[in-house]
């Protein structure tokens, strides 16, 4: 398996999908297009956001849990609600797995702090799943985390225009309990695809990742 990982890494993108064998705790990861897994996860460095309950959301909040991160904004009628609904379903299936979802969090990172106040973010994310967190920060802080994940965003703020265009990476980033950038799920996303791969990855990583 390591050969596959290294080879795929050398080819530029590591695509590993998960096939899981229940008995014998044997799991195999095979190349696929849904999840890109990094064989040597990169530890993230400091950033500081505020969550929808006005608490500091910084690097320490990514430790001790697997975190699914998604960049977006609430004035987004198509891709953001679609992704959050998908993640809510993924969360539901992870919660039903043997290992449960106690060590998992889902974080919606708004790249539009002008319009997305804590109150609005809270109302928005908890509509999809009461456990979801909404966070945001200023451009410098957003940039710090985005750059480490290879995420991008762009706001075409126009004075007087209520619905200005926002561009953002639509992938879902997975950070492990040691706050390392561990994997990324590429769109189009589906709940089953995410939860099944995550469950295998978590099983494989086991105590290593925590």
């Amino acid at each position, binding site marked *: 398996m390591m050969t596959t990982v290294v080879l795929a890494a050398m080819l530029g993108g590591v695509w590993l999908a998960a096939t899981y064998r229940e008995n014998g705790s044997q799991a195999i990861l095979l190349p696929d297009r849904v999840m890109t897994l990094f064989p040597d996860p990169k530890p993230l460095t400091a950033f500081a956001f505020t969550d929808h309950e006005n608490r500091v959301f910084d690097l320490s909040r990514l430790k001790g849990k697997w975190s699914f991160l998604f960049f977006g904004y609430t004035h987004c009628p*198509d891709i953001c609600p679609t992704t959050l609904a998908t993640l809510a379903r993924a969360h539901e299936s992870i919660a039903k797995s043997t290992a449960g979802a106690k060590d998992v969090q889902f974080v919606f990172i708004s790249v539009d702090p002008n319009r997305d106040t804590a109150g609005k973010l809270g*109302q928005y994310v908890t509509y999809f799943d009461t456990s979801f967190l909404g966070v945001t920060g200023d451009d410098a802080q957003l940039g710090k985390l985005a750059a480490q994940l290879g995420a991008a965003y762009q706001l075409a703020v126009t004075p007087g225009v209520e619905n200005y265009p926002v561009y953002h990476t639509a992938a879902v980033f997975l950070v492990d309990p040691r706050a390392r950038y561990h994997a990324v799920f590429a769109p189009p996303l589906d709940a089953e695809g995410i939860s099944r791969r995550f469950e295998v990855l978590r099983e494989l990583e086991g105590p290593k990742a925590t």
Partner: protein
Amino acid sequence: MRWRHAAFAGLISALTAIAAAAEEAGISVRDAWVRETPPGMAMTAGYMVLQNKTSRPQVFVAARSSGFETVMIHRTIAKEGMTGMEHAPQIELLPNASLLFAPGGYHLMLLNPKRVLRAGDRVDITLEFRGGLALPVAYEVRK
């Protein structure tokens, strides 16, 4: 006031005729749904399968609804590794072809609904085609 009523009745029958013409022309919609609005949000999106069963191309140019302040034809696009939306001024439907309006692609951008939309509600939107054809469509609100 009588002339106003007459004019109104005239308008209604003209609209009905146009709608009927669109049906007859063989443009139809199935699987029409609108996403429920998350609390506090003044926008959502509408999806459908738009079918052109005629032997001529049809051009979808606009959509309107009394249930929203603005309805626009939008498309989610990829740009430099990012996702965004752009206004699609018109979409040509090839003869005997279907066009999918689905999450992550074409959608009706619905701004400022006049009321909160809950799953199970119905929303009426009229689709307009070049040449004056209009097709009223009932959308089901889904979560």
